[in-house]
C-alpha cells in the first residue's frame, strides 16, 4: 500500500472514529437537557443556550478529526 491510499484510509478512519465519542456525548447531553426542560420548563431558554454551547464544544472534537483528515487529503506531508 503506498502512502496515498494509506492516507485516504487514514482520513476516513480519522473522521469516522472522531465522530464516535462526540456522538455519544452529544446524545447524553441532549437527553439530559430535554429531561431538564421537562422538569423545569421555565428554564428552557437558559438550558437551550448552554446546550448549544456544549454541543459546539463536543462538535469541535469531531472537527479536530476532520482537520486531521483534511491534512491527510490536501496537505499531506508524506506525499510530494
Amino acid at each position, binding site marked *: 500500500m503506498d502512502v496515498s491510499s494509506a492516507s*485516504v484510509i487514514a482520513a476516513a478512519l480519522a473522521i469516522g472514529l472522531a465522530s464516535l465519542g462526540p456522538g455519544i456525548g452529544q446524545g447524553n447531553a441532549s437527553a439530559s437537557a430535554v429531561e431538564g426542560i421537562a422538569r423545569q420548563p421555565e428554564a428552557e431558554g437558559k438550558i437551550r443556550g448552554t446546550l448549544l454551547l456544549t454541543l459546539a464544544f463536543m462538535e*469541535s472534537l469531531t*472537527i*479536530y478529526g*476532520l*482537520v486531521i483528515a483534511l491534512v491527510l487529503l*490536501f496537505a*499531506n506531508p508524506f506525499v510530494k
Partner: protein
Amino acid sequence: MLNFLDSPNFVSLAALEVGQHFYWHIGSLKVHGQVFLATWFVMAVLIIVSLLATRNIQRIPTGMQNLMEYALDFVRELTRNQIGEKEYRPWVPFIGTLFLFIFVCNWSGALIPWKLIHLPEGELAAPTNDINTTVALSLLVSIAYFYAGFKKKGLGYFAKYVQPTPVLLPIAVLEDFTKPLSLSFRLFGNILADELVVGVLVLLVPLFVPLPVMLLGLFTSAIQALVFATLAGAYIHEALEGHGDEHDEEHA
C-alpha cells in the same frame, strides 16, 4: 497533494480548492491575497455599519442604531456573563470585536457569492477558513489573557501554575498551548468543514438539495463565533481570578 476532487469530470460543475492561494509578494514575504481581500471587505462592512449607527445618535434608537445597540447589548451581556460585573468593562471592545468580526467573516463566506469574482489563483471565501486568520485571532486571545493576568497580579500571576499542587505544573503549562490550538482549530475546522460539505453537496446535486446544509452552516457559523468569544471571555476571566480565590467567582 491529493487533488482528486477537482478531477476533470467535476471541474465544470464545482471545483473544491483547498490549499491554493492567491499569493501576494511583499518584499521577501508571501501573503494570502484572497484572505486579505475578504478581510478588508468584512472590516469595511463593520466600519460602515458602525458609522451609520453612530452618525446620528438619538435617545430613542431607530434603524441601524437599534440593530447595533442590540449587537452591543448582546456582546456586553456575553462579556459580563464570562468576566463578571466588576472587571468586564475594559474587555467589551476586544471580545465584542472578536465576536462581530468572526460572525461577519463566517456569514460572509456563506452568504456572499464570492465565486463570481475570479482570482488568478485560489478563490475568495470566508477569511476564517484560512488557518492564518484563526491562529492570529487565538494568539491574540492568548496575549490578552496573559496581559489581563499580569496587569491584575503582576508576577504573582505565575502562582496559578503551582496553586493547587506543583504536580500539575506541566499540565498547567500545556494548557497555555492547547488553548490557542483548540480555539484556532475549532474555528478553522468548522468553517472549512461547512464550506467543504456545501461544496461536496453542490458537486453531487447542484440545485436545492444543499440549501438545508447551507442553513445549518449559517447556524454553525454563528454558534462558532459565539463559542470563540465566550471562550476568550472565559480564559480572560480565569486569568483574572486565578485558581487561588475561587470563592470570588460565586458572586462574580
